C-alpha cells in the first residue's frame, strides 16, 4: 500500500517543531509499524535527509520504549498493543497517518518523536521498591504463602511497562494509572505492607512535583494502556493514600 505520513519533526528540545509530510510506497500489510518507519528512514538517508528519530528497542511490546501518538491515539488504532506491535494491516492503501510524540508537560520532547520520560523513574525512586537488602539473607520463599488470587492480581498490576501511553492519552496528563499499578502490586503482597503508607505518600508527592495532572475518571488511560492495566489500580491507590493519611 501507499501512504502519506504527517510526522512531527523537532531538532532538539529547544527547537520549535512542525509537522512534515512524507510518502512511502509498497508497504506490506505484514510489516510492523516500526518496520514501515524503517522503510521511511532508509528512504530519507538515501536522499540525504535526516531520518526521523523515534524510541524503540525490544520491538515485541515489553520494554516500553516505543511511544508514538498515531492518528490521535497513543500506540495507534489497535487495542492492547504497543506501537512496535501495531501492524500495517490496521491501515488501508491511500491512508494519511499523523505521527506525533507523546505529549505532556512532564514528558518534554528530546527530538522528533523521542520524549523524556525520566519523570517516571523519579517517581519510582521515591518509593517504588521494598527495602530489603539484596544479600539474599532472607527467609525461604515459601515461608509466607500468598493466595493465588492476590499473587495473580499483583502480577496483573506489575505488568505495566512504563510506556507513558496513559499520560499521553489523558486530557489532564495524569500518571495515576502508572503510579497506581506500582502501588497496587506492593499493596497486594504481604512483603509490601511494612512500607505501604510511606510508599504511596512519597510516590504521589513526587508525581505531583513532576507536573502530572489529576485524575478525573475519564477512563481513557485504561482503554489505551497496551497492557490492560485496570482503573481499579487507581481506586486502590486512592484507598491506600486515604489509609496513609490517618
Amino acid at each position, binding site marked *: 500500500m501507499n501512504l502519506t505520513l504527517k510526522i512531527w519533526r523537532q531538532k*532538539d528540545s529547544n527547537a520549535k517543531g512542525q509537522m512534515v509530510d512524507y510518502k512511502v510506497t509498497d508497504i*506490506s500489510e*505484514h*510489516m510492523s509499524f*516500526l*518496520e514501515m518507519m524503517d522503510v521511511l528512514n*532508509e528512504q*530519507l*538517508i538515501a536522499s*540525504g*535527509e*535526516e*531520518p526521523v*528519530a523515534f524510541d524503540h*528497542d*525490544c*520491538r*515485541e511490546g*515489553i*520494554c*516500553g*520504549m516505543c511511544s508514538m501518538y498515531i492518528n490521535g491515539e497513543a500506540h495507534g488504532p*489497535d487495542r492492547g*498493543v504497543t506501537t512496535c*506491535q501495531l*501492524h500495517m494491516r490496521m491501515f488501508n492503501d491511500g491512508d494519511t497517518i499523523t505521527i506525533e510524540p507523546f505529549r505532556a508537560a512532564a514528558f518534554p520532547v528530546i527530538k522528533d518523536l*523521542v520524549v523524556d*520520560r*525520566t519523570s517516571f*523513574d523519579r517517581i*519510582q*525512586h*521515591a518509593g517504588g*521498591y*521494598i*527495602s*530489603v*537488602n*539484596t*544479600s*539474599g539473607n*532472607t*527467609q525461604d*520463599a*515459601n515461608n509466607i*504463602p*500468598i*493466595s*493465588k488470587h492476590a*499473587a*495473580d492480581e*499483583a*502480577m496483573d498490576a*506489575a*505488568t505495566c511497562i*512504563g510506556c507513558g501511553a496513559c499520560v499521553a492519552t489523558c486530557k489532564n496528563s495524569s500518571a495515576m494509572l502508572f503510579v497506581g499499578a506500582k502501588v497496587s*502490586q*506492593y499493596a497486594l*503482597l504481604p*512483603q509490601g505492607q511494612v512500607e505501604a503508607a510511606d510508599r504511596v505518600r512519597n510516590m504521589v508527592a513526587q508525581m505531583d512535583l513532576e507536573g502530572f495532572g489529576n485524575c478525573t475518571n475519564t477512563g481513557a488511560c485504561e482503554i489505551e494502556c497496551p497492557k490492560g492495566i485496570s482503573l481499579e489500580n487507581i481506586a486502590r491507590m486512592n484507598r491506600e493514600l486515604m489509609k496513609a493519611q490517618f
Partner: protein
Amino acid sequence: MALDSKVPKGPIKDKWTEYKNHINLVNPANKRHIDVIVVGTGLAGGSAAATLAELGYNVKAFCYQDSPRRAHSIAAQGGINAAKNYQGDGDSTYRLFYDTVKGGDYRSREANVYRLAEVSANIIDQCVAQGVPFARDYGGLLDNRSFGGVLVSRTFYAKGQTGQQLLLGAYSAMNRQIARGKIQMYNRHEMLDVVKVDGKARGIIARNLITGEIERHSAHAVVIASGGYGNVYFLSTNAMGSNATAAWKIHKKGAYFANPCYTQIHPTCIPRSGDYQSKLTLMSESLRNDGRIWVPKNMEDVLAIREGRKKPTDLSEDERDYYLERRYPAFGNLVPRDVASRAAKERCDAGYGVNATGEAVYLDFASAIERYGKEQARIQNIENPSAQKIYDLGKAIVEAKYGNLFQMYEKIVDEDPYKTPMMIYPATHYTMGGVWVDYNLMTTVDGLYCIGEANFSDHGANRLGASALMQGLADGYFVLPYTIGDYLANDIRTGAIPTDTKEFDEAEKGVKDMIDFFINNKGQHSVDYYHKKLGKIMWDKCGMSRNEQGLKEAMAEIKALREDFWKNVKVPGSANEMNPELEKAARVADFLELGELFAKDALNRNESCGGHFREESVELDGEQKGEAKRNDKDYAYVAAWEYKGEPADAVLHKEELEFNDIELKQRSYK
C-alpha cells in the same frame, strides 16, 4: 599470558564457601572511597549495581535506553531455574549442576557451574522478598514448570513475563540505592571505550546519546554487563539496540574473548515474513511442554498447504510427522534447543517447511487442549462432555498458561493459534560465548569484570532454558559483590581516579576520531545495508550447521564487507545531537570484527558440540547416526582469543577443561 581460571582448591561442594571464608574484605568505611562503574542494567548489571551500592561502594551505572528498566532482560518470557526442590521430584544442587554441564555439552567450567547451582535457590528467596509476583498454586505456594532438556520441574515463572518481573525487581533495588545517592544513574549513555591506567581498568569513555557529548568517567573497577551479541546475525530475538560494543572494546584493550562461535539458535520463534523484517520474536520454550511439533509426512500435503488448498487441521494424525517424537522418543518435544532447532532445519531443508518461505514447522496445541479439557471435565464432574465442551475447558487451561504468548502470536501473524497450529522456525537467541573471565568473573585485564550474558562462563556450548536469568542474577546479587571486594581491598588508599590524564586523553581521542570519521565519510550505503549483509553471511555460513569451506568463505566475505563499510558507509546528521544512525554505525563496526572472529573460532573447533554443529563431525553409524559428535580428546578446552589487530590474526589461548565431578558422556536424548 597463560590463562589462570583461579578456581579454588578443594571438593567442588566446598569451593565457594571456602573461598568466601578466605577472601579479602573491604570495611564499610573504606567502601565509601571506592567507585565502581557498571555498564548495563539488565539482570546482571542491575542486580550488581544495586548490591554494590548497598554494600557501600559508589556506583555509576550506564545504559543506552532511557531507563534501566528497559534492558533486554525485560523480554525473557519463560522462567528462571532454581534448585529448590519444592516439587519433591528429586532436584538438588548437584542435579542442577549436572544438568547444566551436560546441557552445555561439557564445555563449561565445572566450578563456576556448581557455584551457580548452589546460589540459585537464594535468588528465589531474594526475589520474593523484593515483591516479584511469581506464579503460585492454589495453596499459595510457588508454582514450577519444567523446561527443555531436563527431567524435573524447577522453573519459577511469572506468567510469560518472568524476565520483566525479575528485572523490575532489580530495578526496584536500584531505585532504592539511587534514592540514597549510592547509584549515580546514566541513562541514554553508551560506553564506547574502556580506559586502562597502569594495566588496570580505571574508567570508561561514554557518549551522552541526547547531546552527543563525549564524557570521561573514572572508577576503581569496571564491570561490563552489556548482554549478548546475537545481533551479529542482524535478525535475532535480541532488542534492536543490543550490541557487542562494550564487550568488543574491552577485547581490543586486552580482555580475551572466549568461544565466540557458541550461539544458541532457539527453536520456537515466529518465522520471518519478508525482507523488511527488523527482528524476530521468540515464542517461549515453555510452549514445548504442551505443544507438539510436526510437519506433513507427504510432500503433496506440504505443497497443498503452501498453496492454500489444504489447512494443517485437515491432516489426519498419520499424515503428520511428529519428527521430534519420532527421532527422540525419550525427550520428544522437550529435547534441548540445539537439537530441536537442527531437527527443524533438517525437515525444512528437505523441503517440508509449511509456509511460503519454506522455513516453518508447526507447533500444535490441539492434543493439549483435548487432554486438559478431558481432565477438567473429570474434575468438574461433567458426564459425557461434548467435543465443544472439552475444547472450551481445555482452551481455558491453555489460555491461563500461555494466553499472552498466544495473543502476541496472533497480533504478529494474524492467525488464531487456538484454532490452527502455530508456525515456528529457529532464530538466533542467545550467545554462550563472550568475554573470558576467571572464577572471580574478572577478565584478563585487572579490575575489569564481565557478568551476565556478556561473559562466557556458565553455559558451555549450549544453554538450558531458564538458566540465563539465573546466571545474570547469581553473578550480580551473589557472586561479583564478593569477588570484586577481594580486588578492591588493595584500592582503599588509592583515592579518586583523576580523568585529566593522558590515558583518558588517548581513549577519548580514539572515540572522537571514530565519530568524526562516520559523520564526515558521506558514503553511499546506510548502516543497515551493511548490517543486513553481515547477518546473511552469518546465518548462511555460521548458522545452525557449519563447515570448513563455508567458514573460510565467511571470514573472507566479512573482511571484505568490513573494508567496504569503512570506505562507503553513510551516516547522516551530526555528532553533537541525538543521532540513532551514528549509534548504529559504531555498533555495526564492532559486529563486523566480531563476526570474523566468530567464524575463525568456529573453523578452529572441528567438532560438533552444543549449538556449534560442524558437518565434518557427526556419528557415522549406530543409533546416533547423523547426530552431533563431540571430540573431547582434542577440544575439551575453552578457546580464548587475544586481540592482535585484525580478527584473523587473533591468538588462541586454551583453558583446558577438567571434569572431576561429572563423567564426560556423549549427549543422548533418544
